[in-house]
């Protein structure tokens, strides 16, 4: 990798774990119940900014959850089928997302919004879960969604 690593401000760790993945970014909140197919991990909410995208193995970056608390179980279903995000980075602690990540073993970090703003779609991200360290190893597209 020729690009220099981009180190972001330390994030708060809700669920630890070291992982890597491509960044998928939504500036809108996400509802997992009704908004994401529990079998495939496809975003199915009509009119959603990342509608049609698949969450599998992505580092999913979005502000916070919304909608039914049953969303936690959808994350579990994705993890069981191996189509869960590699990790989730939120701007704000959200009980639905946190519960879902804990029961599913999906690393979850809470990072300041200004930090999240520096991540671009398609960036290759590495997460050091225990320490709350987020590194951008490679840059994706320049255009932000």
């Amino acid at each position: 990798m020729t690009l220099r690593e981009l180190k972001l401000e330390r994030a708060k760790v809700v669920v630890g774990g070291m992982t890597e993945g491509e960044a998928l970014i939504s500036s809108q909140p996400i509802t997992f119940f009704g908004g994401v197919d529990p079998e495939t991990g496809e975003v199915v909410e009509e009119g959603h900014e990342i509608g049609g995208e698949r969450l599998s193995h992505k580092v999913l970056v979005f502000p916070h959850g919304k909608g039914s608390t049953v969303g936690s179980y959808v994350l579990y279903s994705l993890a069981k089928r191996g189509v869960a995000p590699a990790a989730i980075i939120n701007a704000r602690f959200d009980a639905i997302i946190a519960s879902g990540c804990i029961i599913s073993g999906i690393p979850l970090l809470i990072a300041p919004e200004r930090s999240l703003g520096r991540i671009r779609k398609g960036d290759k991200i590495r997460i050091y879960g225990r320490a709350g360290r987020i590194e951008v190893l490679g840059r994706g597209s320049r255009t932000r969604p």
Partner: protein
Amino acid sequence: MNESGASRVSTLKPSSETMWRLIEALRGGSGARNLVAIRSAHISGVSYSNIGIAGIEFLEDLAASGVRVKVRTTVNPGCADIYANPYGIDGDTIKNQRRIVESFRKIGATTTLSCTPYEGHQPFLGEHIAWAESSAVIFANSMFGARTNRESGISALASAVTGKSPNYGMHMRKDRVPNVRVEVDIGDIDEARAGALGYVLGTKFGSTIPFVKGVRFREKHKVKGLLAAASTAGPMPLIHIDGVTAEIGWARRKVPEKVEHRIGMDEIEEAVEHLSCDSEEPDSILLGCPHLSLEEIDLVVREMGDRKFDRPAFLFTCREIGRLAKDLGYVDKIERAGAAIVVDSCIIWSGLKALGLKRPATNSAKGCFYLRNAMGLRPRLCSVRECLRL
């Protein structure tokens, strides 16, 4: 499905440790400094039509790990009667609903399938509990002065297993202080309009702890309808009602003097209109959202007198009260009048689809909201008396 998926499956094993981690994370996220011991838990997210296969898988995995609840734990209704199916609900739905109930039994919950746990277990003033189901939460906080936040199905489950809940919000007296004074200028109103009043309160003051003066009625079922509708329209976990609720004594001393809002009959009728869809004739009658108590079943039976329901009518309650109503002779009278008791389920019932019902009349403002928004039906809000004279 790829290979990493297959490897993940075997590693997912929710256990009591997972539930402890969950409680600890929720404590951190809520900013609570410590956990508080709870005396009972009530779990939502029990209906198959709500949690689907995803929820079943989690509950079965958790039950298989051998976890047991630490406190008395009750559960919300499902989407169908788990033993009898006289209305032709599809077999898979019933089978999956049974799997959910079985999982809860395994972990030691009392599978009441009721949304009114306070009918069986009345918490004491100041007792800490962890309840989900917004209408039960607001009833326990307001009517008993018990202390619970609005838990989700999964956080209540974690509290049941750990016996703890994060100590913040409704568990602290300082957050139970009323911060808005509302005056109500109405006479005695029926239960449908009491619900509409709740809906107005929830819509306008959902993010506050209101103090409400001027409510004239004292019947428990009207207060129950009011509170249920309020917590449907807004996120409020507690309302102090002068002359009605448990902590009204000190609430009266703490509430601001200034009257923020006055609610009159016109605003209530407006809410009734808003909650009801078009004026087409209702095709059915649904009573019991929240579940009917024995007292309410008695009220319906007395209101019926010699009248008969002239369209399909269903009364929703839990198995325990349904059984009692049968033993006491109410069910015979209800069936003779052309209605039926439905247990284990609530008005968000798989039977509605099986029977093809589209325009139910109900006396529940909360019910109207969900029939419309969760089931896509066209409900009408009217009292039991009006339902019998449609």
